C-alpha cells in the first residue's frame, strides 16, 4: 500500500483543462506540515549535517579552514586517536555480536513460548518479561554493579548455591570479561524489544497454517523451522538492524558503571564513550569539538553502511508473504 491519498479535495471540482494550470499550494497543507518539519529540521537534520561539515574543517586560530578528510585521516592514523578508535570500534562489534547471539535468539524463544496457543497468564508474563526494558540504563547499571560486587557477594552466594561458587570473579573489574559482562547486562535489559516484535509477528500468522502443518504430521519443531520462521523473517531483519543502530547509542550503561574512561584500562570503551571523552575532554586532555564531530561522522558512515546493506541486500532478498 503505497499512497492512498485522493486529490486535494477542498477545492471545488475544477474542469480538467484548468487542472493543468498551476494552482497555489494549499495553505492548510503547509500549516499541517511546517511545525513538525521545522523542529525536526532545526534540531535533528541541521545538526547532523552541520556536524558532518565541522568534521571537514580544521580549527585554526579562530577561523576555520577547509581541511577535507584530514580529520578523518587523523582519527584513523594519529597515535593519539587511532588506537582508541579501532579499539572502540572493535568493542562496539563485540557488543553487537553478543546482542545478536544472545539477546535475539533468547528473545525469539521467549516469543515462541509466549505465542503458544491457549497460554494462560500471557498478559502477566508479557508484563514481567518486558519490565527491565522500561528501566533506565543508569538504574540497570547500578543494580548490576551492586549484584556483581564482590563486596556484597550476592552473585557469589547464588553461584555457590548451585555449586559454581569457585567460578565467581569480579568481572566488571577485569579487563577481559568486563565488556562481555556489560553486553549481557544490556541484553538482560533490552530482551523485551525483540521478544515483543517477534511475538507480534508470530501472532499475525493465521492459526490455520500451523494447524494444517500439524494435521499433515509435522512436529512442533518442523512447524517452527518450516512455517513460522520463514513467515517472520522480515521481523528478523528489523530486529537485526534495530540492534545494529541501537548499539551505537550505547553510552549510558558504560558511563554509569565504568565512568567516562570506560575502565578497566579502556577495555569497555565504545564509540559512544570515546565520542563523549573527545568532545568534552577528560582529566588533562581538553575537549575537542572538531575531533568529536569527526568521530560522530565516522559513526554516521558506519551506521549508513549497515542500513544500506539492510535496505538493498536483505530487503531485496527476503521473501515477504502476504498474510
Amino acid at each position, binding site marked *: 500500500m503505497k499512497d492512498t*491519498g485522493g486529490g486535494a479535495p477542498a477545492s471545488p471540482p475544477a474542469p480538467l483543462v484548468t487542472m493543468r494550470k498551476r494552482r497555489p499550494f494549499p495553505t492548510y*497543507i503547509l500549516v499541517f506540515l511546517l511545525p513538525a518539519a521545522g523542529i525536526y529540521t532545526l534540531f535533528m537534520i*541541521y545538526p547532523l549535517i552541520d556536524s558532518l561539515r565541522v568534521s571537514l574543517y580544521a580549527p585554526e586560530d579562530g577561523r576555520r579552514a577547509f581541511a577535507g578528510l584530514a580529520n578523518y585521516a587523523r582519527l584513523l592514523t594519529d597515535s593519539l586517536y587511532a588506537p582508541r578508535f579501532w579499539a572502540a570500534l572493535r568493542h562496539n562489534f563485540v557488543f553487537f555480536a553478543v546482542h545478536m547471539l544472545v539477546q535475539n535468539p533468547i528473545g525469539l524463544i521467549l516469543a515462541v513460548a509466549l505465542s503458544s496457543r491457549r497460554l494462560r497468564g500471557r498478559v502477566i508474563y508479557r508484563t514481567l518479561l518486558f519490565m527491565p526494558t522500561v*528501566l533506565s540504563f543508569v*538504574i540497570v547499571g547500578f543494580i548490576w554493579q551492586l549484584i556483581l560486587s564482590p563486596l556484597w557477594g550476592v552473585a557469589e552466594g547464588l553461584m555457590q548455591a548451585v555449586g559454581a561458587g569457585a567460578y565467581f570473579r569480579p568481572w566488571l573489574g577485569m579487563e577481559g570479561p568486563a565488556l562481555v559482562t556489560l553486553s549481557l547486562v544490556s541484553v538482560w535489559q533490552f530482551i523485551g524489544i525483540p521478544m515483543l516484535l517477534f511475538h507480534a509477528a508470530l501472532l499475525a500468522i493465521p492459526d490455520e497454517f500451523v494447524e494444517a502443518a500439524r494435521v499433515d504430521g509435522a512436529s512442533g519443531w518442523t512447524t517452527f523451522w518450516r512455517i513460522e520462521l520463514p513467515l517472520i523473517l522480515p521481523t528478523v531483519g528489523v530486529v537485526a538492524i534495530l540492534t545494529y543502530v541501537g548499539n551505537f547509542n550505547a*553510552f549510558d550503561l558504560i558511563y554509569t558503571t565504568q565512568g567516562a574512561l570506560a575502565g578497566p584500562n579502556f577495555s569497555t570503551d565504545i564509540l559512544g564513550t570515546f565520542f563523549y571523552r573527545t568532545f568534552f575532554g577528560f582529566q588533562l586532555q581538553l575537549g575537542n569539538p572538531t575531533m568529536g564531530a569527526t568521530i560522530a561522522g565516522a*559513526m554516521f558512515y558506519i551506521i549508513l553502511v549497515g542500513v544500506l546493506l539492510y535496505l538493498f541486500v536483505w530487503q531485496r532478498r527476503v521473501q515477504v508473504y502476504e498474510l
Partner: protein
Amino acid sequence: MAHLVLITYAVIAMLPVLLIVANSFKTRAAIFSQPHLPPWPGTFSLIGYLTVFSRGNFERYFANSLVVTCVAMALILLLGAAAAFALSQYRFKGNTWVGLYLALGIMIPIRLGTVSILNLTSALGLVNTLWALILVYTAQGLPLAVFILQQFMRQVPRDLLDAARIDGMSEYRIFGLVLPLVRPAVASVAVFTMVPMWNDLWFPLILAPGEATKTVTLGAQQFVGQFISDWNALLASLTLAMLPVLALYVLLSRQLLRGLTAGAIK
C-alpha cells in the same frame, strides 16, 4: 514447556529488581549477612530512605523529568499527527519526498549531531533550560510518530471526511475530527518515544546539567554516586529512582504492550 521457559526467564528478569527493593528496607548488617532474605521485623529499617530524603533533591528532578517528558510528548503527538494527516490525506507535489525526509530520522541516532546541537542551543540561549531538552526530544520523537500515525490515518474511512467537507467543514476542523480516531496509535507512539526520553542520560548531561534543570535520570546517576559506601542510602535511592517508572509501567502496561504489538504488525 512454554510455562517452564517463561517462568525461568521471569525470575531472571525480576530477581535483580526485587533484590534491590527488598534490601533497601533492611539494616546494614542484614544487607550483608542475609541479602537473599526479605526484610523481617528484626532486620527492617528505613534508615536509607531517611538519609536520602534529608540530602536529596529528588522532588525537583522528578518534576523536571515530568515537565520535559509531558511537553515533548504533547508536541510530538500534536505536530506529528498534523504532519501525518497532511501526508496521508492530500496528494500534493513532493508528498513522497516529504514523507521520506521525515522518516530519515528513524534510523539515524540524533546523538551524532551533538556537537552542533550544543552550539545551536547555546546560540539560542537555551543551555541549562528544559526547553533545550524538550526541543531535542521532540525532534528525536517526531519521525517515528509521523510514521506510525500515518499508518493509522490511512485507515480512517474517506467517506466520513468527504461528508464533512460537503457540510462545509474547514480542513482544520476535519483534522480535529480525525484526531480522536487514532487514539489507539497514541499508546504505541508513547511507548516508543516516552521511555527513551525519561531514561536518557546523554542530553541532560550535555545540555542541561545544572542543578535546577537536572532530570531524574541524571540526578540519580550523580546522586547514587555519592553514596558508594553507604549501602542503605544507595539501595534506597535506587528504589526511589525506579519506583515512579515501575508504577507507571504496571498501571499502563496493558495499553502500552498492546500498542507495541499492534504498532509492530503494520
